[in-house]
């Protein structure tokens, strides 16, 4: 059965495509000055639509909201016919990440307003078209609840990002773009096999139940009642513990590898520094701000919900990799001379926290992890904007070349300090809330031990070390390379405008996190219910 009628989710999802269509019919040469405005206006309208969704969102109700479901195609497999459906809707977690996406997009477009890359590389029209395509596919990933359509959106995000890095990136851009493409595709294509198996076994590709049709999650719970689980040969419950070579375990890994590469979880992170360093500023901001969250979101949405048994079995291992990521990322980050690489590796460290939080498998852990996804998007997105603006002025990414920037750019220095402090988790700012809740969750987790919390906490201290090192080298001391003109020290209006929403969010989420926790409460509880022993 279908739940038809145009939902607000659909409207938000397809608004970027409207912008893309307009851009497509514009002349890239004669209307060059208007291109960025069309893209910016589209992203702002999309943001407004997502805020409307937020206003309509009822945080107290469980399940998906603003749902739309239409049958799209039928796949016949043997005697059974499986529907693929256009199935969108949001719960608290999706809602928050959609808001993050639509929030980051206008900022990153503003960030590329005054950019010099177009003077060198041109093709502005294509650039904004790819940004619109990227926004569409990213929102799609967060709102779609049909596995096949999810896979479609998931893979589509690769294409615009590949071109963004490859055409408008720095010197090593081709290497980075190809590595990014191949690495992430290798991970996600195994997920396709797992998805097909899930559909074949459960008779549906919809994860949630809607309009009378039973989704995969509900089926998994029914199997649990029968004691059969994924293997269909059951009763697994009577076996001695969970088998690591069972079907469920392989399916879990099939999904996990795709997500782990995207996050990236140590040791799948090697594409990230290359992609981040080479990408243009907007690309880095979106990559850090949103794309990485697709991985952690996927783990929460699919791995935890569809394979609860395997999740429990694998939780300590993956949380361990998360902790390794925290320490390793921080350590490598400290060793960098390249400021953009430093921020890139800090992502590995910060995302490690999210992974630990997820696999604590309790309410605090998951809420903290989801909040930390948003926090990291905002503060690391902000850090990449800072790096981008520094590069626009000094054309170097080496920390040794900087110094004393605060003296000539006091406002910029203050903003950078706030964002750095937010990234290292200073109490009162947003980063603290996420990390603290995650640590609380890991401490109270039935599945993780005290050691996880201990080593993860080390990461918080190390974050302070490498971020303060960066701040000291770049902003303190004597100005090493004065610019030729004083005007260079001024922030343009678009640069200032890009920072305002970031600063507001940093303080808002730090001071009043309850607003965001409320959104997550019910959604997270329904997942955690799977893991209560």
């Amino acid at each position, binding site marked *: 059965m279908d739940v038809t009628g145009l939902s607000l989710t659909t409207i938000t999802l397809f608004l970027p495509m409207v912008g893309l269509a307009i851009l497509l019919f514009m002349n890239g040469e004669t209307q060059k000055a208007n291109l960025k405005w069309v893209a910016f206006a589209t992203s702002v309208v999309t943001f407004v639509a997502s805020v409307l969704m937020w206003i309509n969102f009822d945080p107290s109700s469980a399940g998906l909201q603003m749902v739309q479901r239409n049958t799209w195609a039928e796949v016949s497999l043997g005697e059974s016919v499986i529907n693929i459906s256009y199935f969108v809707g949001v719960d608290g977690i999706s809602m928050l990440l959609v808001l993050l996406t639509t929030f980051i997009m206008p900022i990153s477009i503003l960030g590329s307003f005054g950019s010099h890359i177009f003077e060198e590389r041109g093709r502005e029209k294509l650039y904004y078209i790819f940004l619109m395509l990227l926004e569409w596919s990213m929102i799609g990933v967060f709102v779609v609840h049909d596995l096949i359509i999810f896979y479609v959106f998931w893979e589509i995000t690769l294409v615009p990002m590949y071109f963004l890095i490859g055409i408008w990136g720095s010197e090593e851009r*081709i290497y980075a773009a190809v590595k990014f493409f191949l690495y992430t595709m290798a991970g996600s294509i195994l997920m396709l096999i797992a998805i097909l198996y899930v559909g074949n076994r459960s008779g549906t590709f919809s994860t949630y139940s809607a309009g009378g049709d039973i989704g995969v999650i509900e089926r998994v719970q029914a199997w649990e009642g029968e004691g059969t689980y994924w293997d269909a040969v059951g009763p697994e419950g009577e076996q001695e513990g969970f088998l690591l070579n069972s079907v469920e375990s392989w399916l879990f890994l099939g999904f996990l590898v795709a997500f782990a590469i995207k996050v990236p979880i140590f040791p799948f992170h090697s594409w990230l520094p290359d992609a981040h360093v080479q990408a243009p500023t907007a690309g880095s901001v979106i990559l850090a701000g949103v794309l990485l969250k697709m991985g952690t979101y996927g783990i929460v949405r699919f791995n935890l919900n569809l394979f609860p048994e395997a999740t429990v079995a694998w939780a300590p291992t993956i949380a361990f990799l998360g902790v390794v990521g925290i320490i390793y990322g921080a350590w490598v980050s400290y060793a960098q001379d390249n400021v953009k690489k430093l921020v890139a590796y800090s992502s590995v460290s910060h995302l490690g926290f999210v992974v630990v939080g997820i696999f604590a498998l309790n309410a605090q852990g998951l809420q903290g992890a989801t909040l930390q996804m948003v926090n990291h998007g905002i503060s690391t997105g902000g850090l990449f904007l800072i790096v981008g603006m520094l590069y626009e002025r000094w054309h170097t990414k080496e920390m040794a070349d900087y110094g004393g920037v605060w003296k000539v750019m006091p406002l910029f220095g203050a903003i950078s300090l706030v964002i750095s402090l937010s990234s290292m988790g200073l109490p009162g700012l947003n980063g603290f809330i996420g990390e603290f809740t995650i640590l609380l969750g890991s401490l109270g987790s039935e599945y993780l031990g005290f050691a996880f919390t201990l080593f993860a906490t080390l990461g918080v201290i190390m974050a302070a070390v490498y971020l303060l090192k960066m701040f000291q080298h770049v902003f303190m001391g004597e100005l090493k390379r004065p610019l030729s003109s004083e005007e260079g020290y001024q922030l343009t209006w678009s640069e200032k405008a890009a920072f305002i929403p970031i600063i507001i969010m940093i303080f808002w989420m730090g001071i009043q996190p309850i607003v965001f926790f409320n959104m997550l409460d019910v959604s997270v509880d329904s997942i955690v219910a799977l893991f209560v022993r």
Partner: protein
Amino acid sequence: MFESPTIAEFLAQSNLASTLPATLLLAWTLILVLVDLFAGEDRAHWTPVMAGVGLGISFVANLFVYSPAESEQIALYGMFIADAFTGFLNMVILVATLIAVLMSWDYLNRADIHRGEYYILALISSAGAMFMVAANDLIVIFVALELLSIPLYILAAFRSIRNDGSELSLKSEESGMKYFILGAFSSAFLVFGAALVYGATGTTNLPQIFSLVGGIVGGTSAAAFYLLIGAALLVVGLGFKVAVVPFHMWTPDVYEGAPTPVTAFMSVTAKVGGFAALLRVLVSGLSALVLVEGGAAAWQTTATIIAILTLVLGNFVAISQRNLKRMLAYSSIAHAGYIMVAVAAAGTANAIDAATQSALVYMMAYMFTNLGAFAVVMAIEREDGSGGNIDDITGLAKSRPLMAMAMAVFMLSLTGIPLTAGFVGKFMIFASALQAGLFGLAVIGVLTSVVSAFYYVRVVVNMYLREGAVDLQPALETPYVRWAINIALAGTIIFGVFYPLATNLVGMVSIA
């Protein structure tokens, strides 16, 4: 012996109407021979135009004869079968031929090798492929295969000599010769296989073979042995035609040497015909060849091994190719491997329909995408056949943005990225492999897709990410090549975005 029927009886019993798409095309081609003969130099363009009209007539006839909902019709005393399978593949073949004809006019004139016979040979070959997808009898498969192949041998060597008599390309001559010798060789395997199957069962008719196989395998006679050998030889013979490993050696040389439109044409039609016959023989004829009670067909293991070898070799060797035509040749070997995955899946009884349908969708997706890619390669190729290297495509996005965009879409489709036809095909193939329980094969299939991404993406890298200039032939400005690319692009995107279109078209296909 049977009595020969009178003509009236023949017409009444043979159900000729259902063969119309193929026979009309053949008859039209024969008229075309005369037209071309008398048209003269200044009306040389009549032949391609009329060839296009003939393809259109056949397409319309095909729409009338085959409605997907209708059950199968048998014609020509059981030798010819008209079902949804035939109707769908007829459309694929006709569209492929049309695109190839559009590509050819320009190319032939540019290289000064334009002769009307070219189109006639292409149409005969295409009619042969149409007979092949409808063949319900080993003899018809053989005859249709020859009808398909012999014109291709000549076409492959079409670039050897210019119209003014001067030598143009030794490679083309080599290509035709090589293709002919290996083609003849493979036909021998096919005939020998057919003979052994006939020896074992006493018939060449596929449904009759099917009904007899169960009893032969269950019994103790030597016939089961002949049947197995015969089936193996049939796979070898058809394996040559579709170029699966280890019967692929001829492909790169032949594809590189042949005129580009011919390469494009034969990389699609010969494969479609070959795989159709392979599916008919193995599924309609020999799916009861089950040696273990309740197990899969005996040829499934063979098909699986061939599929794995083809996927691995095709994709890995394509990486090291610098010439685009050779790269596409190896990539076409790899794509034969994906279709072979579907053939292997058809060995499991409950996956037969899903596997057949997925093979059909894949062939259609491959047809649009591959022809489009070849059309772009042809457009950048220089008169003397050079300029088809991967470096020659550098900077195409600046000089020809639309063409580069189309090529990028084709490359993404060949990789299997969503929203392109290639993804739909791969998705269905892997789904059917899982349905058949061939997990390992499906995993190898997706992993080799990642390998293929490496060399397809390199083309995109060169077009978009590197700076450079392509000096294009002015002849390219004719609209025909652009039309060929546009049709291929439209097919790739429409069938990729509107997924249900493809599944509805093949929804009724069942050849078991």
